[in-house]
């Protein structure tokens, strides 16, 4: 059942992403991208990441895409002429993307067991017995501390310094965006 739902949302995500890169109108491209992000949020729920799914809807489908739509409408790009590159670029795209798909879809054959054995053979990464103690770790952590607690506890303990650095990054982004978008510096 979970697999069937996963494939439905995966199909929606792939079709929406394809339409997103093929739409001439930037507004419809943005809306198809929103559709992709919503189906990705549904897939996150299927992968036991409910909190990440909520963040995906709030931050990506909400904030980031609204920012995109604001800029598109501010610049009045609604009726853009065709902006596809020429045939030589299309051929190059097909070759590059084809190679990339062949390389990356090798990942499809990965199962938890194969991943575990490959990591066990890798030199001095971690003790595989501790990493794969008994079944999926995320589910165990969620059962022990709740879905949000399982993310919050390491975020504010182990990853506290990166978390604080993120705030500096956001401050720099805010100042940079204001300075760049201002009419006269």
């Amino acid at each position: 059942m979970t697999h069937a739902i996963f494939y439905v949302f995966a199909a929606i995500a792939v079709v929406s992403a394809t339409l997103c890169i093929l739409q001439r109108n930037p507004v419809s491209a943005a809306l198809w991208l929103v559709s992709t992000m919503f189906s990705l949020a549904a897939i996150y729920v299927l992968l036991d990441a409910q909190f990440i799914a909520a963040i995906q809807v709030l931050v990506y489908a909400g904030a980031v895409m609204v920012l995109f739509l604001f800029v598109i409408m501010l610049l009045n790009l609604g009726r853009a002429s065709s902006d596809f590159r020429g045939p030589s670029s299309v051929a190059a795209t097909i070759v590059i993307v084809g190679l990339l798909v062949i390389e990356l879809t090798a990942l499809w054959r990965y199962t938890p067991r194969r991943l575990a054995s490959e990591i066990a053979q890798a030199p001095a990464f971690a003790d595989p017995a501790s990493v794969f103690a008994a079944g999926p770790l995320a589910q165990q952590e969620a059962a022990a501390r709740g879905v949000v607690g399982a993310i919050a506890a390491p975020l504010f303990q182990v990853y506290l310094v990166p978390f604080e650095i993120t705030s500096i990054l956001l401050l720099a982004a805010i100042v940079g965006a204001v300075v760049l978008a201002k009419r006269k510096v």
Partner: protein
Amino acid sequence: MLLGPALGLSAILFSLGVAGVLLRRNAIILFMCVELMLNAVNLTFVALAQLYGSSGYIMVFFVMTVAAAEAAVGLAIILAIFRHKRSVDLQNINLLRG
């Protein structure tokens, strides 16, 4: 467990993002394709976090923060370029081409 199919889906989405970046000339759509690639990477993190524990979710968190910052600054740059050139077509933005 949906490890393999999730990794495969993220591979397809990433490739679609690359295709978009290579095919289009509209700067805003290029940015959207970059966001699509970041989303595909997030899906990989979430799929592997099932096995490895919550560190993958925290990486997703950081990727989302960086993506938000990148979108804000990038769109401000596009806005500034549009004021200058009256266009967001990358064909017209070739100041750095030798």
